[in-house]
């Protein structure tokens, strides 16, 4: 049985309807005929799970400026940040926040009625002197409010959504020797039909890929679909070895408890009740950058000062904060503790452990959101923004509140750039049989009779990633992970699904998602093996120091396939853009 197929034509197609996708859609819809393809209903996107805030040097509550914010971002990223991009991020942050307010976002307010601001990890006054109040927030559901506000404005602008359309392939075609964007192929969940979207410009805004870890704050659906589609088509992935582990996930579950909890005065404690962050970060303490805090937590655990019978977690202590403050500023996370742990945060500390949170790496772009085909050339008509992309404003470690900022600044930029490009460019011819690759893959998976199950391979992948490629890494653990992933990829070829139907076949969907996770996990581990230094979120115990001589450069990973169809990964490197700040040792 062949799969039915439809062809659509739009100027601009946006893949993903989280913060970056919808911010792009608001701009693109005003300027070009735009379609948004999204695996989930837009308001289900994981932007909604972000809690703490969005950084911008509004200086509403204390002295602040965008240059300090730029510095903190560069330092937070352990100097792997492209400084021209960080400067744009920090400068445009201010208008980004004000734009959202004008779109209706209900920020918390100061007594004067201005947008209120609070402290967050790594954000400091005057280049590290003391914590600064830079995070604009709406209780502990800032991401929810951003997602809702952007969706509301998409409704207002009449943005055209294709809900529960899962993009599986990127179509590129040669135009005068340059590989250019022709469109995408999507699988409609409701019917199992394939849809080819021919487009002048495509914006990938499909989010992260954290689901290859077991303990993660990421949604089940964050499976790196955009990254994998680009990578399979020979485009590079940048800095994939840099993955952020958020210090405060709910023990064993990984559900995020915002850094805002520490911004409001929460303290991390070991089994002796000691405020251990004082030892590791004398100035910023509990508000040091996330990589530093996560490593400190695991150091405490390794040295026997973890809590609980297994000594495998530490406490986030909010008990000294007034209940009114928790109710007003942290209502959601206190409810998570009650719902999932049966703990009352007014009186009891919350057991936490670092949780896989955010991919700093992704599809490389320049500051206009244009996707790079290599270190210098762009792919005409292709854009990316948000967690799927790597600009790189986050370098080796993202600061808290900079991702809600990133999706707004670069989502907007990508949306404008894509629509402007579409206004002048023509359609690129679709490749021959444009949906064939996806149709074959889907039919193969549906008809497969192999004895491997998705759930077992995914579990094995998550086990090895948690064990070998998390906060601490060595050559040995990474090699072990790589071997395991290679074996899992070969087992994956024998995966079969039980649901053979066409209608809402989420069994099939999960199998396809697993293929993406395996592909990207391999890139992460392969890139991490080659980076023989420690920087930001990538910590190598066998190379504990930062090595600016050899590794002050971005990793660019490419999929290569030889004439016999054997796949391998090739690594290249791209220089870091440095403008104002010379790398120095990072202390908090």
């Amino acid at each position: 049985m062949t799969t039915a197929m439809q062809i659509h034509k739009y100027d601009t197609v946006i893949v993903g309807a989280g913060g970056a996708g919808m911010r792009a859609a608001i701009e693109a819809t005003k300027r070009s005929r735009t379609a948004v393809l999204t695996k989930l209903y837009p308001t289900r996107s994981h932007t909604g799970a972000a809690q703490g805030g969005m950084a911008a040097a509004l200086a509403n509550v204390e002295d602040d400026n965008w240059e300090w914010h730029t510095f903190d971002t560069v330092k937070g990223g352990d100097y792997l940040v492209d400084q021209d991009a960080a400067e744009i991020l920090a400068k445009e942050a201010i208008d980004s926040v004000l734009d959202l307010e004008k779109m209706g976002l209900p920020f918390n307010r100061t007594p004067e009625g201005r947008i209120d601001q609070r402290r967050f990890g790594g954000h400091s006054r005057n280049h590290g002197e003391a914590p600064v109040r830079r995070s604009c927030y709406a209780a502990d559901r800032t991401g929810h409010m951003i997602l809702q506000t952007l969706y509301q404005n998409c409704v207002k602008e009449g943005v055209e959504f294709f809900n529960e359309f899962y993009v599986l392939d990127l179509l590129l075609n040669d135009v005068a020797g340059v590989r250019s964007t022709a469109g995408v192929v999507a699988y409609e969940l409701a019917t199992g039909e394939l849809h080819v979207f021919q487009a002048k410009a495509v914006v990938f805004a499909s989010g992260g890929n954290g689901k290859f870890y077991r303990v993660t704050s990421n949604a089940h659906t964050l499976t790196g679909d955009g990254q994998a589609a680009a990578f399979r088509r020979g485009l590079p992935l940048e800095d994939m070895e840099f993955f952020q582990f958020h210090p405060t996930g709910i023990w064993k579950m990984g559900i995020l408890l915002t850094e805002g909890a520490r911004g409001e005065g929460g303290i991390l404690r070991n089994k002796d009740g000691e405020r251990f962050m004082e030892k590791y970060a004398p100035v910023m303490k509990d508000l040091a950058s996330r990589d530093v805090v996560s490593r400190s937590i695991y150091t405490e655990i390794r040295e026997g000062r973890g809590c609980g019978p297994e000594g495998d977690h530490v406490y986030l202590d909010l008990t000294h904060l007034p209940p009114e403050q928790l109710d007003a500023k942290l209502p959601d996370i206190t409810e998570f503790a009650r719902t999932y742990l049966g703990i009352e945060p007014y009186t009891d500390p919350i057991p936490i452990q670092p949780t896989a949170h955010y991919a700093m790496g992704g599809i490389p772009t320049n500051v206009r959101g244009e996707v790079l085909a290599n270190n210098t050339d762009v792919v005409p008509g292709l854009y990316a923004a948000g967690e799927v992309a790597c600009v790189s404003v986050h370098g080796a470690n993202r600061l808290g509140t900079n991702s809600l900022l990133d999706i707004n600044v670069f989502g907007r930029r990508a949306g404008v750039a894509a629509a402007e490009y579409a206004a002048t460019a023509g359609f690129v011819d679709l490749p021959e049989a444009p949906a064939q690759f996806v149709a074959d893959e889907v039919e193969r998976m549906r008809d497969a009779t192999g004895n491997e199950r998705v759930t077992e391979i995914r579990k094995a992948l998550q086990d090895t990633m948690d064990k070998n490629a998390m906060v601490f890494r060595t050559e040995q653990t990474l090699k072990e992970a790589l071997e395991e992933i290679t074996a899992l990829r070969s087992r994956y070829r024998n995966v079969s699904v039980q649901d053979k139907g066409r209608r809402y076949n989420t069994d099939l969907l999960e199998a396809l998602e697993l293929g993406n996770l395996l592909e990207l996990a391999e890139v992460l581990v392969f890139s991490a093996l080659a980076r023989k230094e420690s920087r930001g979120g990538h910590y190598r115990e066998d190379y504990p120091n930062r090595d600016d001589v050899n590794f002050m450069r971005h990793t660019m990973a490419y999929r290569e396939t030889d004439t016999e169809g054997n796949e391998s990964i090739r690594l290249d490197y791209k220089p870091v853009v440095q403008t104002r700040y010379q790398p120095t040792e990072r202390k908090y």
Partner: protein
Amino acid sequence: MATPTLEKQPAADTGHLVTVTFRIRRFDPERSADAYWQDFELRIDPKERVLDGLHQIKWEHDGSLTFRRSCAHGICGSDAMRINGKNRLACKVLIKDIADVKDGVGTKPVVIEAMKGMTVLKDLIVDMDPFFQAYRDMMPFLITSGNEPTRERRQSPRDRERFDDTTKCILCAACTSSCPVFWNDGQYFGPAAIVNAHRFIFDSRDEGGEQRLEILNDRDGVWRCRTIFNCTDACPRGIQVTKAIQEVKQALITRRF
């Protein structure tokens, strides 16, 4: 050495697991025009979520069991369904709170079915489009006039507080599909749409209140509410839904908001 805590794999001790039956309403029009009930017996940690139980079934027993889910902690609103007769998010209900476990065995099955009053498409998946259309009918966006200010619009903490409760809505449809009026007459906008109208009507920055009130004054509008409070009980975000609807009714009478 690898990341430490994770070297210790959970012990093979399964003494804490309980036996629970999930009784699920199945429907797949590709296979049969008729819906039916199917029982699954699970061995599961009582501290796990109902969603974890559904995953166990899907991943280990029957891959065709179909439901929506994403964030798994009550934020995205994907997995609203009817659990033991009440609308709940499957990721916010723990097995121990629903299965009535005695001596390691659930005394009654956990009954799970799609939300009521909405077209079932497959198993626990319902057609959400009419729900989102009712939401869009409320003009759920800030309406203002005149030139935009350079900086932010000012709003006092008290004015901000006025509509705080209704900003929490995650559009999961648990409230709307728990409403007997909505079951009987699919034309009623339903609680979620009214909650989202409330969020703007009582926002001091908004100037579209009159327009929204006119829409809600319609025969399918706010007057259909019979203050049954099912919606308030069902809301996974703890929104005082019925109260919000009452406030809209009052605003319609007094034209003050």
